[in-house]
């Protein structure tokens, strides 16, 4: 089976007032179909930036300097080089084939629009043809029925509506409806699209286990609790059944009990929707719970990638080992990783971790190690191997 995402030699740099920050350096990573890959690391490790880079949402003053991100579009059956796509085609992928869930659900939702509106927006954007088709069918059934006709509305009006929605359903960018949607007053004539989108919204809210979804959809974000908000955001991301769901620390801002529910939800999504998930987190426990494979990053570089059991039972990279050691356990003395986080502006030469590494070799100062497959499906970037 082809890999869903193949990242090679990715470099992302930030051109700031104080200097150039190497947020991501020389990254090689694969995401396989149907797997949940976790990226683990401290703040500044570049894990969030990797997620944003896939969607080409790296904020100013950052730039994707070089590298390649290949996405295998299952529906098209083709590979796409994401970094070379035109912006218009990239937009067709965002929210549709690859979607993202952010850390703070309260911040991610727009306070002036209802939940339902924000989710329907995705359907209206990416599933217009299907909405048109459904609307047309409803108009058809009304025409046949005869009783549903509003008093005073004549048949030609309904036939015109039918034609309109048929056009939307058939063509990819029909002229007449598009013109209509631009004119403020006439936009209302396409209200059936919105209705259909709202129905789909209620469905997806049901999928993420939000109780009484129709009522919730009519509410504003500030009226919902944290857990509900996050579910709504997840619903928004899952609306178009994406092939890849990127979750950037989705549980970090929630309290522990809600966290557990959220992870349960993610597990169900994995099973039901069959999507791949890229799960970014700094919490090793969460990663252990939910991921199939785990990648460890430090200072913009990949240290180790392996299956979840393998990496927790047999960590190879000194940084991974130190991270696992640092997890507090009752009865154990608290371990820390000595030294300070690598300076983003002036990172240490060679291997970025070497100043803090207990097993550093002299060559670690000069040369960085390349990612090597040490045992089956277990790759490390360290001179010790």
């Amino acid at each position: 089976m082809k890999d869903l995402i193949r990242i090679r030699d990715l470099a992302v740099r930030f051109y700031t007032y104080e200097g150039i920050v190497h947020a991501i350096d020389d990254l090689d990573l694969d995401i396989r179909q149907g797997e949940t890959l976790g990226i683990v690391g401290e703040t500044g490790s570049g894990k969030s930036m990797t997620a944003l880079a896939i969607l080409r949402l790296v904020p100013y003053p950052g730039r994707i300097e070089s590298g390649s991100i290949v996405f295998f579009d299952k529906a098209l059956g083709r590979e796409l080089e994401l970094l070379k796509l035109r912006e218009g085609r990239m937009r067709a992928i965002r929210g549709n084939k690859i979607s993202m869930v952010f850390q703070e659900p309260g911040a991610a939702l727009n306070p002036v629009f209802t939940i339902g509106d924000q989710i329907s927006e995705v359907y209206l954007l990416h599933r217009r043809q299907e909405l048109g088709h459904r609307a047309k069918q409803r108009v058809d059934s009304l025409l046949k029925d005869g009783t549903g006709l509003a008093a005073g509305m004549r048949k030609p009006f309904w036939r015109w509506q039918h034609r309109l929605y048929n056009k939307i359903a058939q063509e990819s960018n029909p002229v007449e409806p598009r013109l209509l949607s631009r004119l403020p007053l006439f936009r209302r004539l396409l209200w059936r699209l919105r209705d259909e989108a709202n129905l789909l919204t209620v469905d997806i809210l049901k999928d993420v286990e939000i109780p009484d979804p129709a009522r919730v959809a009519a509410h504003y974000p500030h009226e919902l609790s944290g857990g509900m908000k996050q579910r709504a955001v997840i619903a928004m991301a899952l609306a178009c059944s994406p092939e890849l769901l990127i979750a950037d620390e989705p549980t970090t801002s929630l309290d522990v009990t809600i966290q557990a529910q959220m992870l349960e939800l993610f597990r169900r999504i994995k099973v039901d929707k069959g999507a791949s998930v890229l799960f970014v987190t700094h919490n090793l426990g969460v990663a252990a719970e939910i991921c199939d494979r785990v990648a460890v990053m430090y200072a913009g570089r990949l240290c180790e990638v392996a299956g979840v059991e393998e990496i927790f039972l047999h960590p190879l990279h000194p940084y991974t080992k130190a991270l696992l050691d640092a997890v507090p356990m009752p009865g154990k003395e608290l371990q820390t990783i000595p030294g300070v986080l690598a300076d983003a502006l002036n990172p240490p030469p060679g291997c970025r971790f070497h100043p803090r590494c207990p097993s550093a070799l002299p060559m670690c100062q000069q040369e960085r190690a390349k990612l090597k497959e040490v045992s089956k499906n277990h790759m490390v970037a360290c001179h010790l191997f």
Partner: protein
Amino acid sequence: MELRSYIIRRLLLLIPVLFGVTVFIFGITMLFSPIERVSLYVTDARQFTNIPALIETYGLDQPFFVQYGNWISQVFSGNLGWSRVVGMPVWDAIWHFLPTTLELAMFATPIIILMGIFLGTQAAAHKDRPLDHGTRVMAIFGWSLPTFWLGLILLMVFYGYFRGLLPPSRLSVPMELVVHSADFIRYTHINTIDAILNLNGAVFLDALRHLVLPVITLTVVQVAFIMRLMRSSMLESLGKGYVLTARAKGLAERVVINKHARRNALIPVITVGGYLFAAMVNGVVITETIFTFKGIGWWAWQAAVRLDIASVLGFALFNAVLFVLVNLVVDILYTRVDPRVRLGGVMQ
């Protein structure tokens, strides 16, 4: 219903404020002698012949609160005194001069709001690029312009240099005659509207021609203000999480800016709406004076220079009440736009 109780609550809170306003205004009048204060109570010029009797009647040598009581009851019965400078009761003067000012405001306000919001949004969307820098310099320049000087310069160029292209005053002499003739019905006393209602194109165009310069003078400073405010508000909005989410959904940049970011950015701008009104009144006084537009601003200036206190205070009172009402409207508008203010509480 929540909104209704909110409005009622706000209206109730207005009362102490309005009370304080009237006390304050009245306090200022006490700086004048009783003879001068007589004009606050008079409704007819002939009454001035017998001043001592008036002082007696209105108790102008009585203690403060008695006088205040007298005056307030006068005010409530619609008597704001006599305007010396225009020879009519203050109340009548206000309604006589208001249409002119309304005409100016009618044209200026939409321009200010639309241009300010548009330019501010564009400046924020193109931050640090030439458009942003350009609008910023323009804004600082506009904000530093003395309104009166701008008016004079505009007149000098467009009336003087271009030989009467854009003249001062509301209408040229021939059109004045038309407007005051029997054939022309002045429904609203706002020349442009009346011209449309009378289907008189010549008057309409003439009125417009006379409006160009005053409206420009009035709008330049305010546009600069709104634009800067909108820009910083937009920048704050664009930095928020929901903008990133909107982009991650695949929305076009134009939709992200205009739909998602701007709606939120408008919220602080709306709350400033009250101040816009105040700034307008400021500008109106100066503009009407320079261009000889006989509106309430012009009237207030005449009154202030000639120490006609009844007029000045009548104007101040009128303004204060209007201002407070405008703020109320702005507050209500604010609750409509920002759902967080309108509805509270968390559902499970």
